[in-house]
């Protein structure tokens, strides 16, 4: 019987070797550029928003913890802003791009997924649910997001990032930006 096992294992490894290795070359910066080109025909230059002491309590309330960076990079054109944000699902950070148009999410895209399970959060069918979502008075999304069984933690991380982007949008819009 183990003869068959050996054959199967050999086949498995052969399959692994032949499998496309798109991922190994996947580059977060290239994904970010692709996301920006999709969002803005002509991507504007990036700006920075520093998370100061006055921002921190609100961010903590949205995420349940501090954001792990002091500076957030974003892109703004008219009433639209685009954000690249990180949040841990179960063990590893998920990098997500979010475009906010006038206080509502226009699109969301996973730029890097590093968890071993729950990869379905990257699917367009899942992400489509966030389009049009805004923040309610209680700082919650104004709509229910159907989860993915076995990926509860990743779904929750995505929801937190959606809320964070919606909260950041007016901060960027208010920020005085000298020409």
């Amino acid at each position: 019987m183990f003869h068959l096992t050996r054959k199967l294992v050999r086949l498995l490894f052969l399959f692994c070797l032949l499998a496309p290795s798109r991922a190994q070359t996947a580059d977060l910066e290239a994904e970010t550029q692709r996301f920006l080109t999709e969002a803005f025909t002509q991507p504007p230059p990036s700006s920075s928003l520093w998370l100061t002491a006055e921002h921190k309590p609100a961010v903590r309330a949205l995420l349940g913890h501090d954001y792990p960076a002091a500076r957030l990079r974003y892109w703004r054109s008219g009433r639209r802003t685009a954000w690249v944000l990180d949040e841990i699902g179960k063990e590893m950070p998920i990098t997500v791009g979010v475009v906010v148009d006038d206080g509502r999410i226009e699109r969301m895209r996973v730029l890097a997924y590093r968890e071993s399970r729950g990869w379905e959060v990257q699917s367009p069918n899942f992400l489509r649910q966030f389009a049009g979502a805004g923040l309610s008075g209680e700082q919650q999304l104004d709509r229910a997001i159907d989860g993915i069984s076995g990926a509860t933690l990743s779904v929750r991380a995505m929801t937190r990032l959606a809320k964070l982007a919606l909260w950041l949008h007016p901060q960027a819009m208010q920020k005085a930006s000298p020409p």
Partner: protein
Amino acid sequence: MSYRLPHPRFVRTTLALAVYGALAMPAFAVGSSVEDRLKALEARLAQIESENHSLKQQLKQTDQKADAAGEQVEKIASQGITSKASWADATQFGGYGELHLNQLKNDKPGGADKKEMDFHRFVIFMGHQFNDRLRFFSELEVEHNTVEGGKGAVELEQAYLDFMLTDNLSVKAGNFLIPAGILNETHEPNTFYGVERNPVENKIIPTTWWEGGVGLTARLGNGFTLDGAVTTGMKADAADKYAVRAARQALREGTQAKNPAYTARLKWAGLPGVELAGTVQYQSDVTQGNDATAGGAKLLETHAIVNQGRFGLRALYAGWRLDGSGPKAVGADRQNGWYVEPSFKLNDAWGLFARYNRWDNQAGGGDGVDSSYRQFDAGVNYWPHPDVVVKFDLQRQKAPMGKDEFNGFNVGIGYRF
């Protein structure tokens, strides 16, 4: 002497000159002062503009410096995340646990009731990320609080290395959970309804079910995932009437690895809130060659999970076929069960459920005895936090003749982090 009045024209001209002079003289003096002041203001404005320009330049430089510093900090931080230079950053801990109170009356005449409290499971997760592609994951469990007099257990339920070959393909090796059913891989108490895990997955799949071997996970796109595994097999025994739950070798010392098992699962989760999956497993010899009257075995499992808004539905079927005259003689050549569990979430914190379960570990006709169990559960989950749950349910069982039949209620608390 006569006094002649001046000619009126002269008077008019003199007056006009006087008025003009009166108006023009001060005007001349004021015009010179405004010009000076304007010049002074212009000079001041130019100075302010220059200062402003210089300040803007300084601000820009400060911004650039701050950005550069920020980038540097982020770079260092991201190196910490991705290269996992620090052991602490690369190692994750977590856990879950559940305490159960069973208040169940045994309706079998003379049977003992089950009125017990039990810290059923206390689990510690530990994972380590060696690099972006290679990770380790483990789950260590204390069951029933203590290990004493054949009761309770310390179990290593998972301990495997997972290697991501590509974003869509990974291979794991070690001790891992068999990809079958709903609860076997996702069984933290806050993720399911009911104090106890459902009896169908417990008796038929049988959860929690881990084996040693290698497994492959391929993400095929469009929501499809394919899992394949070659692992140690079961060791069923005639003394247990070939019940699959008792046949798990659990990788304890002496686990026989003569006759492996092959598992394949196809899962579709292409729509949010929906999962459809099917598993087939082939056991090359379900007794590891220890029983000449038995042989191979096949498991077929399929389930659906649908969560749309407040409504939820879980439905699962699992069935075994065991070859050989030995299992057939006691009806264990067929072991199967199914359940349907509709649920409704009142809000984020409260959910109601009902479940109908049916299972039979001697469903084959060989013994000519009705051996099937039926159980109805209904209850409520309360999540004070998404990771913490308090549960209550009512249980109504219908057991075969001569078997324990437990009716009553269960209360539980559970957590994960």
